[in-house]
């Protein structure tokens, strides 16, 4: 919960800062465009400004791609929490079945209890794996594939 809370807070701040910086840069670029139209600048300087503008565009795109990390990591955190909860339930089931065992029990009774425990764990494991389907397969932050049907 704390990790999710901190992650959400961080992305909120990052997002706000990004938007503020972008707004400032856009304003600056408009002013530069106005100057380019009026000022008597050498071609090399104008070319340099155009290249800076293109570089800013590339970096903005990269930032937008990178800022999506929180969405994916949140899903991975939820999956991890579900796994921990599932394991906890399995351990509780183990403890419950184990408490029913007694060293004075006959072998057949112990075998029956062990079979019940195994079946219970198997059912829980199936339920757990069903809920742990991996929805995030990405291993890096390169942009994902696109397919039009």
């Amino acid at each position: 919960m704390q990790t999710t809370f901190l992650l959400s807070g961080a992305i909120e701040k990052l997002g706000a800062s990004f938007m503020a910086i972008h707004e400032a840069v856009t304003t600056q670029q408009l002013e530069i465009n106005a100057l380019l139209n009026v000022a008597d600048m050498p071609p090399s300087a104008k070319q340099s400004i155009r290249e800076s503008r293109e570089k800013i565009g590339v970096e903005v795109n990269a930032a937008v791609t990178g800022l999506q990390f929180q969405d994916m990591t949140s899903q991975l955190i939820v999956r991890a929490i579900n796994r921990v909860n599932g394991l906890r339930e399995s351990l509780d089931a183990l403890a419950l079945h184990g408490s029913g065992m007694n060293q004075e029990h006959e072998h057949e009774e112990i075998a029956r209890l062990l079979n019940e425990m195994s079946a219970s764990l198997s059912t829980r494991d199936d339920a757990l794996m069903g809920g742990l389907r991996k929805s995030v397969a990405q291993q890096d932050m390169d942009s994902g594939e696109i397919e039009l049907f």
Partner: protein
Amino acid sequence: MAKTILAVDDSGSLRQMVAFSLKAAGYDVVSAVDGQDGLNKAKEKTVDLVLTDQNMPIMDGLTLIKNLRELGSYRAVPILMLTTESSDEMKAKGKAAGANGWLVKPFDPKRLIEVVQKVIG
């Protein structure tokens, strides 16, 4: 008149980045926080494109698409999935539900705009 895109995602940061990218390209954006919210907003005003996540609370993306396709006004509106899911199985389900395309997160704004322009101009 600018075309309108409905962007549906339960992640606030994703909604922000999608809206930022699409608005920069001149589109109007309506955002929704889950499939049910998306369906409600889609009924209020018919949009030109729907861009939806899959894994959302209350109503997921596939269910949203199926519900939209049952609305007369959305039979021909392009619907794209924007999701972390990348399996062929999920893509097949998306196509069967009525999706027109599948974009895997994270998205690159330039490529997103290219696809949107290809689909709705």
